C-alpha cells in the first residue's frame, strides 16, 4: 500500500472550476454555464496512482483534461511539480509539457492516421529535443521495446494495428519525453477484456520502472481497485469522497460511494442474489442547473433538511479520508452555519 505520509505532492489541484458557457440566440448571449468541474481540490503524491471514478458525464474526463490545460480552466490553481500552470501562457506551458502527458481513451482516434508509428512516437522528441535523426530513431526503438512493440513496425500506419497495440503506441508517445505525471483517461475502456489486463499490467510495470505518477480515470471500479493507491469519487462535477483504496472499498462513507460500490457486479451468483444493493432513484441532475445545497441531495437515500440548503464542505474527516457530506460534518459547525 502506498504510504502518503512522507511523499512529495506532485500535483496540487485547488478549487478547480471548468465551466462551459451556454450561448443562445442570434447574438450568442451568455445565458448559463455547464458546470462540468465545480470546485475540485485534491493532491496527487509522487509515485502513486490516484483513481478517479464516477458515472458517465460526471466530469472526470474534463477534470483530467483541465489539469493538463487541454481546456482553459475557469478558476482555480493547478500546480504540477511545484509550478503553477492554471493560467500560464503558451510558451511557459510548452516548457512544462514534457512533465505531464496523457494516455487517451480511444486508441483509434488518438493516433493520426496519416503518420507512421515512428512519426507519432518521434513527434514529441523532435518538438522538445535537438536529437539527430539517428538518436531519435534509437530513442523510438527504445520506447517501442519498453511498451512491447516489435521494432519492425516502425514504418507502419496506425490502421495496421489492433486496439491493444495502438494503445501501446499511445503509451509510448506519452512516455517519449520522460514525463513524471500521466493522466490515463479511460485507457482501457475501448479495449477487449483480455487486452485490458495486458495494458493495465504494462502501465503498472512502466510506473515501477520510470517512477511515474498516474491519474487513472475510469468507470471500471474493479480495475481501479486493482491499480489505484487512492480513489476519488466524482459526482456531478464535484469530488464526493477521496480515500485510500482499501478503506474506500471496505468502508465507503459518502452515500453516493456506497451506492456506486454496491453496483459493482458480483461474480458469485449466490452473493449476487443476496447482495444488499442501494438502488438510486431518479437521474443525475443537469450540470447546467445543479440542485441547491449538496448536489447529491435529489437522489440521496439518507437526505436531511440541511442538505437541500447548504453545500457540504469537502474536508478530512479521518486521517487521509476526505468526504463532502453533512453526515460527517461537525454538528456544532453546521448548526452555526444554519444560524
Amino acid at each position: 500500500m502506498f504510504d502518503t505520509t512522507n511523499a512529495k505532492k506532485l500535483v496540487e489541484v485547488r478549487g478547480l472550476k471548468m465551466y462551459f458557457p451556454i450561448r443562445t440566440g442570434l447574438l450568442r448571449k451568455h445565458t448559463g454555464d455547464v458546470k462540468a468541474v465545480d470546485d475540485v481540490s485534491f493532491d496527487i503524491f509522487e509515485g502513486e496512482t490516484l483513481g478517479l471514478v464516477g458515472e458517465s458525464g460526471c466530469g472526470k474526463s474534463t477534470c483530467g483534461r483541465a489539469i493538463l490545460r487541454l481546456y482553459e480552466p475557469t478558476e482555480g490553481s493547478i500546480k504540477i511539480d511545484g509550478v503553477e500552470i492554471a493560467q500560464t501562457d503558451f510558451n511557459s506551458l510548452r516548457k512544462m509539457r514534457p512533465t505531464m502527458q496523457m494516455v487517451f481513451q480511444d486508441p483509434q482516434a488518438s493516433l493520426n492516421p496519416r503518420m507512421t508509428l515512428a512519426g507519432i512516437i518521434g513527434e514529441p522528441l523532435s518538438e522538445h529535443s535537438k536529437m539527430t535523426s539517428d538518436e531519435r530513431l534509437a530513442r523510438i526503438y527504445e520506447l517501442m521495446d519498453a511498451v512491447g512493440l516489435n521494432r519492425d513496425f516502425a514504418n507502419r500506419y496506425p490502421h495496421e494495428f489492433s486496439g491493444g497495440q495502438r494503445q501501446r503506441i499511445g503509451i509510448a508517445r506519452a512516455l517519449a519525453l520522460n514525463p513524471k505525471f500521466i493522466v490515463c483517461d479511460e485507457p482501457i475502456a475501448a479495449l477487449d477484456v483480455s487486452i485490458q489486463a495486458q495494458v493495465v499490467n504494462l502501465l503498472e510495470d512502466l510506473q515501477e520502472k520510470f517512477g511515474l505518477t498516474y491519474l487513472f480515470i475510469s468507470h471500471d471500479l474493479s480495475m481501479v481497485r486493482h491499480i489505484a493507491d487512492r480513489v476519488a469519487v466524482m459526482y456531478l462535477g464535484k469530488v464526493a469522497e477521496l480515500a485510500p483504496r482499501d478503506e474506500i472499498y471496505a468502508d465507503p462513507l459518502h452515500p453516493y460511494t456506497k451506492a456506486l460500490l454496491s453496483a459493482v457486479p458480483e461474480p458469485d451468483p449466490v452473493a449476487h442474489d443476496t447482495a444488499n444493493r442501494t438502488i438510486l432513484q431518479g437521474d443525475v441532475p443537469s450540470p447546467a442547473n445543479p440542485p441547491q445545497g449538496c448536489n447529491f441531495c435529489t437522489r440521496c437515500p439518507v437526505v436531511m433538511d440541511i442538505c437541500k440548503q447548504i453545500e457540504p464542505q469537502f474536508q478530512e474527516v479521518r486521517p487521509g479520508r476526505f468526504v463532502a457530506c453533512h453526515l460527517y460534518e461537525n454538528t456544532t459547525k453546521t448548526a452555526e452555519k444554519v444560524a
Partner: protein
Amino acid sequence: MTDTHLPPAETARARSRLAMAWDSDVGWSFRRSPVAMISAFVTIALILAAVLAPLFAPHDPFNPATLNLMNGFTAPGTPNAFTGDSFLLGTDDQGRDVFSTILYGMRISLFVGFSAVAFAMVLGISLGLLAGYVGGWTETIIMRIADVQLTFPAILVAMLIFGVAKGITPIEYRDEVAIWVLIIAIGLSDWVQFARVVRGATLVEKHKEYVQAARLIGRSPLAIMLRHILPNVLSPVLVIATISLALAIIAEATLSFLGVGAPPTTPSLGTLISIGQGFLFSGEWWILFFPACTLLILALAVNLLGDWLRDALNPRLR
C-alpha cells in the same frame, strides 16, 4: 506482439509508392471502372498534347510571320484554292491552322484552369483551416464573406474582378496581364467551395484525440493545422479540385467567349469559339466546331474523372 509471417519493414519500404497506389482500394476501383480509365486516358492525352504543342502543331499560330492570309477559310482536309496548302482541321479567317490553334489554345486553357484551381485551393484551404480550427469571430467573418460571395454567380464575380483589374492596368500591359487577371478572377470566385469543405472537415478532426495529443506535446496551432489536420482533410479537397478544374476551364472559356478573357492574339479555347461563332452562319463551321468539341471532350473527361474520384473516396459507396 511479434509478427513473423509478414515481410519485414525493409521490403515494405522498397515497394514504390506507385505500386502501392495501384494496389490500394482507389487503384482497385480505378481498374474496375472503364469510364475512369477512358477519362483518365483522354485527360492525360489532351494535357500531353497541350504541353507538347510545339512538337505536334504544324504551325505556330502565335507567330504572324508564318501566316498567309491567302490561306484563310480553308475547309478541313481540302487544299486551298489559291495556295494549294492543305490543313487537317481547316483554317480561320486569318489563315491560322485550326488544329494548331486548338493545341496552343488548350495550353492556355489548361494553364489558366490549373493555376486558378491551385490559387483557389491555397486560399480556400488556408481560410477553411483557420475558420475551422480557430473558430469564434475569425470563423464568423470568413464564413460570412463566403456566404455573401456564394449569392453571386461565380462568373459574375470573375467578370467584376476582371473589369476592375482591367480598369486599373495601363493599356499597354493589358494583354500581358490578362492571363494572370483571369487566373485570379476565377480563383477568387472558386475558393468558397474549398473553404467550406475544409472548415467542415476541420471541425470534425480538431476534436479527435490525436489533435489533443499534439496540443499536449506543445505543438503550435499552426503546426497542428498543417501537420495534423491538413493531411486528414485532403481527400474531399482532391475531389473538389478535380471537378473545379473542369469548371475553371469552362469559366475561362466563358470569360474569353464574352471577350473579357484571353486576347485574340493569344487565343484560348474560349477565344477560338468566340471567333468561330462569327462565321457559323456563313458556312465556315469548322472554325467553331473543332475548338468547341475539344473543350467539350476536355471538360467532360475531367468531370468524369472527378465523379469517379468522389465515389472512389467515399467510404460509404465502397
